[in-house]
Protein backbone atom coordinates (compact mmCIF):
# COMPACT_ATOMS: atom_id res chain seq x y z
CA UNK A 1 0.00 0.00 0.00
CA UNK A 2 1.43 3.40 -0.95
CA UNK A 3 1.34 6.11 1.66
CA UNK A 4 -0.45 9.13 0.23
CA UNK A 5 -2.01 12.37 1.39
CA UNK A 6 -5.36 10.66 1.13
CA UNK A 7 -4.49 7.57 3.21
CA UNK A 8 -2.79 9.75 5.84
CA UNK A 9 -5.81 12.07 6.08
CA UNK A 10 -7.96 9.07 7.06
CA UNK A 11 -6.14 8.84 10.39
CA UNK A 12 -8.08 10.91 12.97
CA UNK A 13 -5.02 12.86 14.20
CA UNK A 14 -4.34 14.15 10.68
CA UNK A 15 -7.90 14.56 9.44
CA UNK A 16 -7.92 18.35 10.05
CA UNK A 17 -4.63 19.04 8.22
CA UNK A 18 -4.70 20.55 4.73
CA UNK A 19 -3.10 18.79 1.78
CA UNK A 20 0.08 20.92 1.89
CA UNK A 21 0.76 19.98 5.50
CA UNK A 22 0.00 16.32 4.78
CA UNK A 23 2.36 16.35 1.79
CA UNK A 24 5.15 17.51 4.11
CA UNK A 25 4.48 14.64 6.51
CA UNK A 26 4.10 11.78 3.99
CA UNK A 27 7.88 11.28 3.37
CA UNK A 28 8.43 10.73 7.12
CA UNK A 29 5.83 7.96 7.42
CA UNK A 30 6.91 4.33 7.11
CA UNK A 31 4.66 1.36 6.63
CA UNK A 32 4.98 -1.97 8.44
CA UNK A 33 2.89 -5.08 8.08
CA UNK A 34 2.59 -7.64 10.87
CA UNK A 35 1.20 -11.15 10.69
CA UNK A 36 -1.28 -12.58 13.17
CA UNK A 37 0.33 -13.16 16.58
CA UNK A 38 3.46 -11.17 15.77
CA UNK A 39 4.95 -9.05 18.56
CA UNK A 40 5.02 -5.42 17.45
CA UNK A 41 6.89 -4.04 20.45
CA UNK A 42 7.66 -4.89 24.06
CA UNK A 43 6.85 -3.07 27.28
CA UNK A 44 9.98 -1.26 28.51
CA UNK A 45 11.56 -0.96 25.05
CA UNK A 46 12.87 2.48 24.15
CA UNK A 47 10.33 4.32 22.06
CA UNK A 48 11.41 5.10 18.52
CA UNK A 49 8.09 6.01 16.93
CA UNK A 50 4.34 6.48 17.12
CA UNK A 51 2.25 3.74 15.49
CA UNK A 52 -1.04 4.21 13.65
CA UNK A 53 -3.22 1.25 12.73
CA UNK A 54 -4.36 1.37 9.12
CA UNK A 55 -5.73 -2.18 8.92
CA UNK A 56 -6.21 -5.00 11.42
CA UNK A 57 -6.33 -5.32 15.18
CA UNK A 58 -3.67 -5.20 17.90
CA UNK A 59 -3.73 -5.99 21.60
CA UNK A 60 -1.86 -3.93 24.20
CA UNK A 61 -0.97 -5.66 27.45
CA UNK A 62 1.29 -5.62 30.48
CA UNK A 63 2.84 -8.70 32.04
CA UNK A 64 3.94 -9.27 35.64
CA UNK A 65 7.26 -10.88 36.58
CA UNK A 66 5.34 -14.11 37.27
CA UNK A 67 3.99 -14.04 33.70
CA UNK A 68 0.47 -12.87 34.53
CA UNK A 69 -0.91 -10.82 31.71
CA UNK A 70 -3.31 -7.91 31.86
CA UNK A 71 -4.89 -6.77 28.61
CA UNK A 72 -5.22 -2.99 28.44
CA UNK A 73 -6.97 -2.57 25.11
CA UNK A 74 -7.74 -3.86 21.65
CA UNK A 75 -7.02 -1.21 19.03
CA UNK A 76 -8.29 -1.12 15.47
CA UNK A 77 -8.03 1.03 12.34
CA UNK A 78 -7.50 4.74 13.01
CA UNK A 79 -6.23 4.16 16.54
CA UNK A 80 -2.65 4.62 17.68
CA UNK A 81 -0.13 3.44 20.26
CA UNK A 82 3.24 4.64 21.52
CA UNK A 83 1.94 8.17 21.88
CA UNK A 84 2.80 8.69 25.56
CA UNK A 85 6.44 7.54 25.34
CA UNK A 86 6.84 9.48 22.09
CA UNK A 87 5.82 12.63 23.96
CA UNK A 88 7.51 12.09 27.33
CA UNK A 89 10.63 10.30 26.08
CA UNK A 90 10.16 7.29 28.37
CA UNK A 91 10.01 3.60 27.42
CA UNK A 92 6.93 1.88 25.98
CA UNK A 93 4.19 1.46 28.60
CA UNK A 94 2.88 -1.85 27.30
CA UNK A 95 3.61 -4.68 24.92
CA UNK A 96 1.70 -4.80 21.66
CA UNK A 97 0.98 -7.78 19.45
CA UNK A 98 -1.05 -8.26 16.30
CA UNK A 99 -4.34 -10.11 16.78
CA UNK A 100 -4.92 -10.21 13.02
CA UNK A 101 -2.83 -9.33 10.01
CA UNK A 102 -2.11 -5.64 10.59
CA UNK A 103 -0.79 -2.68 8.62
CA UNK A 104 0.80 0.17 10.56
CA UNK A 105 1.96 3.65 9.66
CA UNK A 106 4.98 4.62 11.72
CA UNK A 107 6.22 8.14 12.41
CA UNK A 108 9.54 8.59 14.25
CA UNK A 109 9.16 10.29 17.66
CA UNK A 110 11.19 13.38 16.77
CA UNK A 111 9.19 14.01 13.68
CA UNK A 112 5.89 13.40 15.43
CA UNK A 113 6.82 15.92 18.15
CA UNK A 114 7.65 18.43 15.44
CA UNK A 115 4.27 17.88 13.79
CA UNK A 116 2.50 18.45 17.12
CA UNK A 117 4.54 21.62 17.74
CA UNK A 118 3.88 23.06 14.31
CA UNK A 119 0.26 22.06 13.71
CA UNK A 120 -2.38 22.86 16.29
CA UNK A 121 -4.81 20.86 14.08
CA UNK A 122 -2.88 17.78 15.25
CA UNK A 123 -2.13 18.96 18.79
CA UNK A 124 -5.80 19.28 19.72
CA UNK A 125 -6.85 15.73 18.71
CA UNK A 126 -3.74 14.41 20.48
CA UNK A 127 -4.78 16.21 23.69
CA UNK A 128 -8.36 14.96 23.30
CA UNK A 129 -7.07 11.43 22.83
CA UNK A 130 -4.87 11.66 25.94
CA UNK A 131 -7.77 13.08 27.96
CA UNK A 132 -9.98 10.17 26.87
CA UNK A 133 -7.24 7.73 27.87
CA UNK A 134 -6.96 9.28 31.35
CA UNK A 135 -10.70 8.84 31.73
CA UNK A 136 -10.64 5.24 30.49
CA UNK A 137 -7.68 4.26 32.66
CA UNK A 138 -9.30 5.92 35.71
CA UNK A 139 -12.27 3.59 35.15
CA UNK A 140 -9.90 0.62 34.88
CA UNK A 141 -8.21 1.59 38.16
CA UNK A 142 -11.58 1.93 39.86
CA UNK A 143 -12.63 -1.44 38.52
CA UNK A 144 -9.50 -3.20 39.72
CA UNK A 145 -9.22 -1.44 43.08
CA UNK A 146 -12.82 -1.21 44.19
CA UNK A 147 -14.70 -4.11 42.63
CA UNK A 148 -14.60 -7.83 43.24
CA UNK A 149 -13.83 -10.41 40.55
CA UNK A 150 -17.53 -11.31 40.62
CA UNK A 151 -18.50 -7.75 39.79
CA UNK A 152 -15.81 -7.38 37.13
CA UNK A 153 -16.76 -10.64 35.46
CA UNK A 154 -20.45 -9.70 35.46
CA UNK A 155 -19.56 -6.38 33.80
CA UNK A 156 -17.39 -8.14 31.26
CA UNK A 157 -20.10 -10.66 30.34
CA UNK A 158 -22.72 -7.95 29.96
CA UNK A 159 -20.42 -5.80 27.85
CA UNK A 160 -19.49 -8.68 25.56
CA UNK A 161 -23.09 -9.82 25.22
CA UNK A 162 -24.08 -6.27 24.31
CA UNK A 163 -21.15 -5.20 22.12
CA UNK A 164 -19.09 -8.23 21.13
CA UNK A 165 -15.44 -7.41 20.61
CA UNK A 166 -12.83 -9.41 18.77
CA UNK A 167 -11.89 -12.16 19.45
CA UNK A 168 -15.44 -13.52 19.55
CA UNK A 169 -14.44 -16.77 21.22
CA UNK A 170 -12.99 -16.35 24.68
CA UNK A 171 -10.99 -18.65 26.91
CA UNK A 172 -10.99 -18.35 30.68
CA UNK A 173 -7.33 -17.29 30.52
CA UNK A 174 -8.10 -14.45 28.11
CA UNK A 175 -10.96 -13.23 30.27
CA UNK A 176 -8.71 -13.36 33.33
CA UNK A 177 -6.16 -11.20 31.49
CA UNK A 178 -8.94 -8.70 30.77
CA UNK A 179 -10.43 -8.35 34.20
CA UNK A 180 -7.24 -8.60 36.24
CA UNK A 181 -7.52 -12.00 37.86
CA UNK A 182 -6.43 -15.60 37.30
CA UNK A 183 -7.97 -18.35 35.17
CA UNK A 184 -9.10 -20.40 38.17
CA UNK A 185 -11.13 -17.49 39.56
CA UNK A 186 -12.85 -16.97 36.22
CA UNK A 187 -13.76 -20.66 36.10
CA UNK A 188 -15.09 -20.70 39.66
CA UNK A 189 -17.07 -17.50 39.21
CA UNK A 190 -18.60 -18.65 35.91
CA UNK A 191 -19.68 -21.83 37.67
CA UNK A 192 -21.18 -19.77 40.53
CA UNK A 193 -23.08 -17.59 38.03
CA UNK A 194 -24.38 -20.70 36.28
CA UNK A 195 -25.46 -22.23 39.61
CA UNK A 196 -27.34 -19.00 40.45
CA UNK A 197 -29.14 -19.13 37.11
CA UNK A 198 -27.55 -15.92 35.80
CA UNK A 199 -25.90 -17.59 32.82
CA UNK A 200 -26.17 -20.90 31.03
CA UNK A 201 -23.08 -22.68 29.79
CA UNK A 202 -23.56 -24.58 26.59
CA UNK A 203 -21.27 -26.00 24.00
CA UNK A 204 -19.17 -23.15 22.70
CA UNK A 205 -21.18 -20.42 24.36
CA UNK A 206 -22.17 -18.70 27.54
CA UNK A 207 -25.71 -17.35 27.37
CA UNK A 208 -26.86 -14.54 29.65
CA UNK A 209 -30.22 -15.81 30.88
CA UNK A 210 -30.91 -13.41 33.76
CA UNK A 211 -29.75 -10.01 32.56
CA UNK A 212 -31.23 -8.12 35.52
CA UNK A 213 -29.57 -10.48 37.96
CA UNK A 214 -26.24 -10.08 36.20
CA UNK A 215 -26.69 -6.31 36.20
CA UNK A 216 -27.18 -6.44 39.97
CA UNK A 217 -23.91 -8.36 40.21
CA UNK A 218 -22.28 -5.78 37.94
CA UNK A 219 -23.20 -2.96 40.28
CA UNK A 220 -21.96 -4.90 43.28
CA UNK A 221 -25.39 -5.08 44.90
Amino acid at each position, binding site marked *: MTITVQTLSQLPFFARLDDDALREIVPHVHERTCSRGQVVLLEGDPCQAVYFIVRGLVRTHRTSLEGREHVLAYLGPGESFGLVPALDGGPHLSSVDAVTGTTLYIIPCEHFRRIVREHHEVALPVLEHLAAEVRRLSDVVEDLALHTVRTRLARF*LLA*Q*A*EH*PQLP*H*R*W*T*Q*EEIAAHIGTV*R*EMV*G*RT*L*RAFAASGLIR*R*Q*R*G*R*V*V*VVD*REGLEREATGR
Partner: protein
Amino acid sequence: MNRTWTLPQVDETRCTLCGLCVEACSCQAVQLGERGPIFACPEACVRAEACDCCCLCEEVCPTGAITCAFEIVGSEQDYTKRN
Protein backbone atom coordinates in the same frame (compact mmCIF):
# COMPACT_ATOMS: atom_id res chain seq x y z
CA MET B 1 -21.52 -33.43 11.92
CA ASN B 2 -22.32 -29.74 11.52
CA ARG B 3 -21.36 -27.92 14.69
CA THR B 4 -20.42 -24.33 15.45
CA TRP B 5 -18.51 -25.13 18.64
CA THR B 6 -15.12 -26.78 18.98
CA LEU B 7 -13.80 -29.40 21.34
CA PRO B 8 -11.48 -28.27 24.14
CA GLN B 9 -8.04 -27.39 22.79
CA VAL B 10 -4.91 -28.90 24.33
CA ASP B 11 -1.47 -27.32 24.51
CA GLU B 12 0.64 -30.45 24.79
CA THR B 13 3.71 -28.45 25.75
CA ARG B 14 1.97 -27.45 28.98
CA CYS B 15 0.40 -30.85 29.75
CA THR B 16 2.04 -32.84 32.57
CA LEU B 17 -0.18 -35.92 32.03
CA CYS B 18 -1.56 -35.59 35.57
CA GLY B 19 -4.93 -36.99 34.47
CA LEU B 20 -7.07 -34.56 36.50
CA CYS B 21 -9.09 -33.71 33.38
CA VAL B 22 -9.99 -37.39 32.91
CA GLU B 23 -11.18 -37.60 36.52
CA ALA B 24 -13.14 -34.36 36.29
CA CYS B 25 -15.08 -35.10 33.10
CA SER B 26 -18.58 -36.16 34.09
CA CYS B 27 -19.37 -37.58 30.64
CA GLN B 28 -16.20 -39.58 30.17
CA ALA B 29 -15.25 -37.70 27.05
CA VAL B 30 -11.53 -37.48 27.89
CA GLN B 31 -8.86 -40.11 27.61
CA LEU B 32 -5.23 -39.64 28.44
CA GLY B 33 -3.00 -40.12 25.42
CA GLU B 34 0.77 -40.33 25.33
CA ARG B 35 1.24 -36.59 24.95
CA GLY B 36 -1.90 -35.22 26.54
CA PRO B 37 -5.66 -35.61 26.87
CA ILE B 38 -7.68 -36.69 23.87
CA PHE B 39 -11.24 -35.41 23.62
CA ALA B 40 -13.91 -37.33 21.79
CA CYS B 41 -17.08 -35.50 22.72
CA PRO B 42 -19.86 -36.00 21.88
CA GLU B 43 -19.37 -39.05 19.63
CA ALA B 44 -17.76 -41.18 22.36
CA CYS B 45 -19.63 -39.56 25.22
CA VAL B 46 -22.19 -41.84 26.84
CA ARG B 47 -24.20 -38.82 27.95
CA ALA B 48 -23.97 -36.80 24.75
CA GLU B 49 -27.46 -35.41 25.08
CA ALA B 50 -26.92 -34.36 28.68
CA CYS B 51 -23.46 -32.87 28.18
CA ASP B 52 -23.50 -29.17 29.02
CA CYS B 53 -19.87 -28.55 28.12
CA CYS B 54 -19.07 -27.86 31.76
CA CYS B 55 -15.41 -26.99 31.08
CA LEU B 56 -14.37 -28.61 34.36
CA CYS B 57 -11.41 -30.11 32.51
CA GLU B 58 -10.16 -26.57 31.86
CA GLU B 59 -10.82 -25.54 35.43
CA VAL B 60 -8.98 -28.42 37.08
CA CYS B 61 -5.98 -28.35 34.74
CA PRO B 62 -3.13 -27.08 36.96
CA THR B 63 -1.01 -25.83 34.07
CA GLY B 64 -3.62 -24.20 31.84
CA ALA B 65 -3.03 -26.74 29.08
CA ILE B 66 -6.75 -27.05 28.24
CA THR B 67 -8.87 -24.25 26.86
CA CYS B 68 -12.56 -24.31 26.05
CA ALA B 69 -13.23 -21.23 23.94
CA PHE B 70 -16.76 -19.85 24.01
CA GLU B 71 -18.82 -16.99 22.72
CA ILE B 72 -20.71 -14.73 25.09
CA VAL B 73 -24.24 -14.02 23.93
CA GLY B 74 -27.20 -12.14 25.37
CA SER B 75 -29.73 -14.73 24.22
CA GLU B 76 -30.17 -17.75 21.99
CA GLN B 77 -31.47 -15.39 19.28
CA ASP B 78 -28.22 -13.36 19.41
CA TYR B 79 -26.25 -16.57 18.94
CA THR B 80 -28.33 -17.62 15.94
CA LYS B 81 -27.92 -14.16 14.37
CA ARG B 82 -24.11 -14.19 14.83
CA ASN B 83 -23.70 -17.65 13.37
